[in-house]
C-alpha cells in the first residue's frame, strides 16, 4: 500500500465536501508529474488531503477506491489527464499546518514541501505515520 498527498483549494473542493458526498473523483490535475502519480495509485492506497491557498494544512486521510481513469474535465480528445476515485477515512482531529510540517525534521523533506507546486505527491510510510500522530489520528502504522 502506498501513501499519497493531494492538494485542493477548499473554496473549490474541501474535506467537508468529500465527507458530505462520501467519495469523489479527484480530477483537474494538469501537471505531468502529478498525473504520473495519479496513474501510479492503486485501489487501497491512502490519500492525505491538504488544503492549499486557504488553511494550509493536512486535514484528513482518504483512501483510493478507484484506479486512474480518464479525466472528463479535460478537453474533448485530450486523453492525457486522469483522475482517481477517493473516499474519506477520517479527519485529522488537529489539522497539521504547513508551518508545523516545515518545522518538523521528519517532515520537512516531504515531496510536497520540496516541490510546492506539485498537486499530487508521494508520501513515505514514516511521513504518513508522523502526520497522523501529530494530527491526533490513531490508526495502525504504515511503516513496518
Amino acid at each position, binding site marked *: 500500500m502506498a501513501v499519497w498527498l*493531494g492538494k*485542493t483549494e477548499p*473554496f*473549490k*473542493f*474541501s474535506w467537508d*465536501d468529500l465527507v458530505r*458526498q462520501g467519495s*469523489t*473523483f*479527484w*480530477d*483537474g*490535475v*494538469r501537471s505531468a508529474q502529478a498525473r504520473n502519480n495519479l496513474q501510479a495509485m492503486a485501489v487501497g492506497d491512502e490519500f492525505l488531503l491538504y488544503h492549499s491557498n486557504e488553511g494550509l494544512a493536512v486535514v484528513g486521510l482518504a483512501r483510493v477506491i478507484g484506479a486512474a481513469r480518464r*479525466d472528463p*474535465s479535460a*478537453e474533448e480528445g485530450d486523453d492525457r489527464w486522469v*483522475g482517481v476515485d477517493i473516499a474519506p477515512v477520517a479527519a485529522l482531529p488537529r489539522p497539521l499546518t504547513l508551518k508545523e510540517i516545515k518545522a518538523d525534521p521528519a517532515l520537512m523533506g516531504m515531496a510536497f514541501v520540496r516541490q510546492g507546486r506539485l498537486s499530487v505527491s508521494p508520501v513515505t510510510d514514516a511521513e504518513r505515520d508522523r502526520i497522523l500522530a501529530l494530527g491526533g489520528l490513531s490508526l495502525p502504522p504504515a511503516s513496518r
Partner: protein
Amino acid sequence: MRPKPPPAPPRSLEEELQDAVEAVAIGQNLRPGLPGAVATAARGVLLRRGFGKSQVNVRQEGAGLAVSIQLIDGRATLVRSIHLSVEGL
C-alpha cells in the same frame, strides 16, 4: 412553402456565459476539477467573443458555484465585471 422563422435575437455575453457554465456544471457532483472545467468553458466563450484578456475565478458558494469574470483591456484596465452563479449541482 413555410416562411423562414425569424432569426433568433443575439444573446448577450452574460447569457452565453451562463449557458456555457451550466452545460458543464449542472447535474455534476462537486469535485476538485469542476471549478477548473467551468472556468475553461467561460474562457472559451470569452475567446470566441474576442475578449483576449480576462480573469475567471470560480468558488464554491453553498450548494453551487460562483463565477466571477473580469474583462481587461490592452492597458490592463478592468473594463467589465460579470458575476454568475450556478446552482443545483
